[in-house]
């Protein structure tokens, strides 16, 4: 068993700077949980508190049922992979991977077996006698992962391990880490600012902002049922489009602030929003929920826009436009029929839109 439980964990630095506030999360045994959020949201600080590299101001952290608040990192049975690899430059790959085992007085044979086994999994057999400076970024990261694997810890911690890699290598290593989780079947806690990594790798995702957990859920639930505007905008690429406006009581129509856009609501939404009539709300529409009106059956919920920019991606196009001065993006099938500067009619799926309270930003 290697579950990790955070109970009301708070971290306050000097001068009353609260960086993590009242974090409560349970990470199940063998689960791959991703902490995601923008820079400065407290995700790395939370991970470092689990590792024992930062002191906890208040709250408790339990690993495998044992409170570890006062335990040094070496006694928590965890292994960590750092963003900048943190390989010992004066040691060979073999020595880097064996370092922790030697300190723990493992026998030479046992060390050799574990290092060779890890090297085989990570395809590092030919590099065991080399020093880190002669390796590529991806190889160094694999050595860092190997150093963690040989320890056979209860919990693996990853602190943005792919941030220093180029885009192609990042995609490759993402897959390798996911496969590693399946083969090792270990509890893993992964920190990233990249929502794509979070969505593709995590069993569950913890979305954080300003030191506070916004939502904890599976990737699909976060995508389909975001708890608030921040989660809705953070998950999904390109980001969700937000249109602020008001529901008109006489016509049950939504009218955006600048009255450029007006569309009918369906009965489900009308029933849902009965308390919000004549009050401001925010409508969120994902770029992929837009389509050109002529592509499907005629729709009553359409908006007329001027195309400001088209980004052809090959298998799709990103169409940039503005509503109420806000930049918006639609993700549509590639077509030659539209170009920059055109006025087009975009339709969208009413059932997919999200509505947020203007004051609390929470999902209605």
């Amino acid at each position, binding site marked *: 068993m290697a579950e990790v439980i955070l109970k009301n964990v708070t971290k306050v630095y000097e001068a009353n700077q609260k960086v993590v506030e009242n974090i409560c999360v349970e990470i199940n045994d063998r689960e791959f949980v991703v902490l995601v959020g923008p820079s400065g949201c407290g995700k790395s600080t939370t991970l470092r508190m689990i*590792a024992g590299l930062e002191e906890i101001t208040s709250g408790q952290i339990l690993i495998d049922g044992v409170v570890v608040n006062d335990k040094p990192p*070496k006694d928590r049975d965890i292994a*960590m992979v750092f*963003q900048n690899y*943190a390989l010992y430059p*004066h040691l060979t790959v073999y020595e880097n991977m064996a370092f922790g085992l030697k*300190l723990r007085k493992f026998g030479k044979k046992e060390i050799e077996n574990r290092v060779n086994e890890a090297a085989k999994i990570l395809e590092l057999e030919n590099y065991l006698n080399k020093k880190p400076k002669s390796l590529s970024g991806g190889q160094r990261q694999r050595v860092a992962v190997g*150093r963690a694997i040989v*320890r056979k810890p209860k919990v693996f911690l990853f602190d943005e391990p792919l941030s220093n890699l180029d885009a192609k290598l990042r995609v490759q290593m993402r897959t390798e880490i996911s496969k590693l989780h399946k083969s090792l079947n270990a509890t893993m806690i992964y920190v990233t600012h990249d929502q794509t990594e979070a969505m593709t790798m995590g069993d569950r995702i913890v979305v954080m902002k300003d030191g506070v957990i916004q939502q904890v859920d599976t990737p699909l639930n976060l995508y389909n049922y975001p708890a608030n505007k921040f989660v809705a905008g953070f998950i999904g690429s390109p980001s969700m489009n937000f249109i602020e406006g008001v529901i008109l009581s006489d016509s049950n129509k939504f009218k955006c602030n600048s009255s450029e856009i007006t569309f009918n609501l369906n009965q489900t939404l009308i029933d849902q929003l009965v308390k919000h009539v004549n009050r401001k709300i925010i409508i969120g529409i994902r770029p992929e929920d837009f389509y050109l009106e002529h592509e499907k059956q005629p729709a009553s919920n359409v908006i007329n826009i001027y195309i400001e920019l088209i980004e052809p991606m090959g298998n799709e196009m990103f169409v940039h436009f503005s509503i109420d001065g806000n930049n918006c993006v639609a993700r549509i099938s590639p077509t030659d029929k539209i170009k920059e500067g055109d006025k087009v009619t975009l339709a969208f799926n009413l059932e997919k839109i999200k509505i947020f309270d203007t004051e609390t930003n929470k999902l209605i």
Partner: protein
Amino acid sequence: MKRILLYTFLGITSFITILPFLWMVSASLMNDGEASVFPPVFIPDYATLIQFQTLFVRLNAAQNFLNSLLLSTIVTLLSLFFNSMAGYAFAKYRFAGKNSLFNLLLTSMIIPSQVTMLPLFLLLKYLGFINTYMAIVIPGLANIFGIFLIRQYCLSIPDSLIEAAKIDGAGDFEIYQKIILPLAVPILVTLAIFTFLGTWNDFLWPLIVLTDNSMYTLPVALANLMGEHTKDPELMMAGSLVTIIPVIIVFLVLQKYYIKGIMMGSVKE
């Protein structure tokens, strides 16, 4: 044309700089009186080691040489040990008053050593260390320049290396011994050269605290030689050569680390 002029200028300047040293080597291989003739002789008629024989056999310079070697080595090793620990602590540990303490140490560097010589002498006298090796070793155990040099270097070592070592199971001293020291070799060697040279060449302090001929270091013994044998420039040149050859060897062997240590931190990597 410009390059030719530059190289000519550099060649002449280098020759002028090295000329006294070359003459010193030459004179040390001359017979008695050969260095004082006029016009001066730059190359001895017959090279001889008689001056060195006199130095080591008659004047017991071997004992002074051993004193210098022993003291320089002990002071270098001990000061490296203490300076490296202090520098690492100032760079990577958090403790109350760290910055104030470090600033205080730095400020004390403006006090000239001559000011502290008397109180230091009295302290060592009360401890009973005058005319012993301890009188040289104790003041050299740690110095602020060394602590500063190592602190600045340790600041460039990523914190994540130390954190990785903590997670791997290393204690504080193991991190210092197995991670920090190997990484700090260039700066340690630089500091070793500075300390070795400084201790080897030190004249005033050994002169003050050492009173027996048998305890004298080479610079002090050489100064005595000058007092007793002013009319024997060949013997004095031999004594000077014996004094500087070890430091030249140390410098030549370790100079690549020295240059690397000096340049460290000057260029962003």
